[in-house]
């Protein structure tokens, strides 16, 4: 059982504040992804949980024990590093065995665990090699095997796939998901790749500027962004935004059409819609097509609505050319609204 509690954790480096009072609970055996652009504080948060960085303020609890004053080795964690950190002077076998030897486990136990995790990661034929004789993907497998061999309560992963080429990343992603689900550990996984985050996570914590903007399931984060930032960061292409103003009869005026808005909304709101939630029909937003990108299954149309960039993912059978006038109707149940002042969602 290893639930992780983060209470009011803040971190400053001199005058720069990397984390602003973070509160987060990660359930036992949950796969939590910390997602954000570089510099958002996600790696700092992970390193604070690992004990490689100490928080300026706040508490970290793992499995009911306060750990923020303990060294990493007393926290019951294992970690996979971005550059793997597979020891070059040790064989693959000794790399996987490293943590077990530090725990002074009997040789028979070490041997069993090394062989079992090596098999799990499909590197049993590489046990006698040194890391200099391995490919990037193989080193990655060794790093994961070394973490799994510890049978830790918590596995921390710092952008573990970012140094692999695209194809390998896809393969490792699926494999990691399976292996970690079976290992029954709590996992915290840092990435800047939203596709990786969506495909792996039980929950995603989207981070920006040292804050957690939203922590929710991948679909929730995608469909109901808690803030404008989440909608603009997640999804490729991201959400479209247009300014909206309440008219006399309580509806919102968006680029020349009136839409039903939230009852609690103020005089000015921001209208948001995902590009795939638009259809071509009469009475929609008037858009002038600028760039047409056929993608096979769909066609991505970048257009201009009311002088603003506006993207739509449309059926690829649609015949459209740059300069064409389109009428784009948003699906009513997919429209989202944000407060332009606070940038938070308004329901």
């Amino acid at each position, binding site marked *: 059982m290893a639930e992780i509690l983060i209470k009011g954790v803040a971190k400053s480096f001199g005058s720069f504040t990397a984390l602003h009072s973070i509160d987060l609970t990660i359930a036992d055996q949950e796969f939590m992804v910390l997602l954000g652009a570089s510099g958002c504080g996600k790696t700092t948060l992970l390193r604070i949980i690992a004990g490689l960085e100490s928080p300026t303020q706040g508490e970290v609890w793992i499995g009911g024990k306060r750990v923020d004053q303990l*060294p*990493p080795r007393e926290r019951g964690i294992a970690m996979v590093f971005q*550059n793997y950190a597979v020891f070059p002077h040790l064989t693959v076998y000794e790399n996987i065995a490293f943590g077990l030897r*530090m725990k002074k486990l009997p040789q028979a136990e070490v041997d069993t665990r090394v062989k079992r995790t090596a098999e799990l990661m499909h590197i049993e034929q590489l046990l006698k090699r*040194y890391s200099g004789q391995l490919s990037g993907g193989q080193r990655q497998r060794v790093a994961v095997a070394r973490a799994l061999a510890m049978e830790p309560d918590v596995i921390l992963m710092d952008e573990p796939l970012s140094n692999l080429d695209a194809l390998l990343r896809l393969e490792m992603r699926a494999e990691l998901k399976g292996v970690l689900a079976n290992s029954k550990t709590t996992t915290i996984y840092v990435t800047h790749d939203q596709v990786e985050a969506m495909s792996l996570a039980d929950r995603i914590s989207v981070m920006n500027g040292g804050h957690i903007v939203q922590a929710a399931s991948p679909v929730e984060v995608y469909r109901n962004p808690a803030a404008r930032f989440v909608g603009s960061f997640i999804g490729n292409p991201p959400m479209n935004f247009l300014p909206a103003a309440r008219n006399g009869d309580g509806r919102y005026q968006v680029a020349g059409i009136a839409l039903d808005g939230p009852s609690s909304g103020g005089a000015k709101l921001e209208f948001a819609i995902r590009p795939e939630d638009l259809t071509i029909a009469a009475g929609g937003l008037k858009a002038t097509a600028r760039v047409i990108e056929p993608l096979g299954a769909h066609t991505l149309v970048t257009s201009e609505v009311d002088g603003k960039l506006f993207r739509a993912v449309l059926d690829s059978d649609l015949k459209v050319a740059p300069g064409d006038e389109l009428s784009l109707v948003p699906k009513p149940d997919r429209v989202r609204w944000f407060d332009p002042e606070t940038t938070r969602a308004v329901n």
Partner: protein
Amino acid sequence: MNSKTLPYLLLAPATIFLVVFFLWPFLQIAWLAFTTEGGFTMQHFQTMAGNWKFWPTFWNTVILAAIVVPLQLVMALAMAQVVAKLKTTRNTILYIFTIPLGLSDLAAGIIWLAIFEQSGFLNSMLVGLGVVDKPILFLGYQNLWVIFIAVILAELWRATAIVMVILVSGMGLIPKEYYEAAEVFGAGPWKRFVKVTLPMLKPSIQTAMILRTIAAFEVFAVVVALGGTTLPVLVGETFNWQFALNDRNVAAAFALVILAISIAATLVFLRVLRTPKGATL
């Protein structure tokens, strides 16, 4: 420029330098050591080994190196650890540690002579404190071991910093992530030193050991300053045969003995501290 000739052209200056200043003198020495009146002979080596001073000289040199070099390694590792841990005063401490490197070995020997001689600092202090009534003759021929210790101290003071400089630069090359991984996987500070620093520093240790051991076999001026001829060493004897006894052939034989033990030590270090294939950064 032809791409095939370019590498040779670039190698040429170093090759010429080595041929003129190393290979040619070496051949001359070898010629001197192995010939007499144009014919091959082992006579000079027999003269050398037959002299009663040869074996004491040989063992003095080897034992000095065997004590000084390991001590220097241990001290340099400690000093390098200190320097590597420092943040703000790193360069200042590094410069202070390396000051003795700027002195010639004769000057270093004289400094330690000023400490140990009969009218030296150590005696003045002991008399001043009332520990002894009159100055003690530390560096006399009756106390060979004191001269030995004085030479060891002078050598440690003079040449440990060069080992440290090599180790500091080697430590700088070890990525931080390895220490963090070791820490996460259960290694405390001592285990991190033994399991990460030492093995990953092996190439630097190898370089430093080869460099220092060869230099230790060539110890001369410090010994002359502190012990005169009371503590004979190989280079001292080479000098003696060349200039005092005017026998260039036996001096050449001595030079070849120094070369032989230097090569032997180098081969041992290359073998013992080798890095297995693929086990590099």
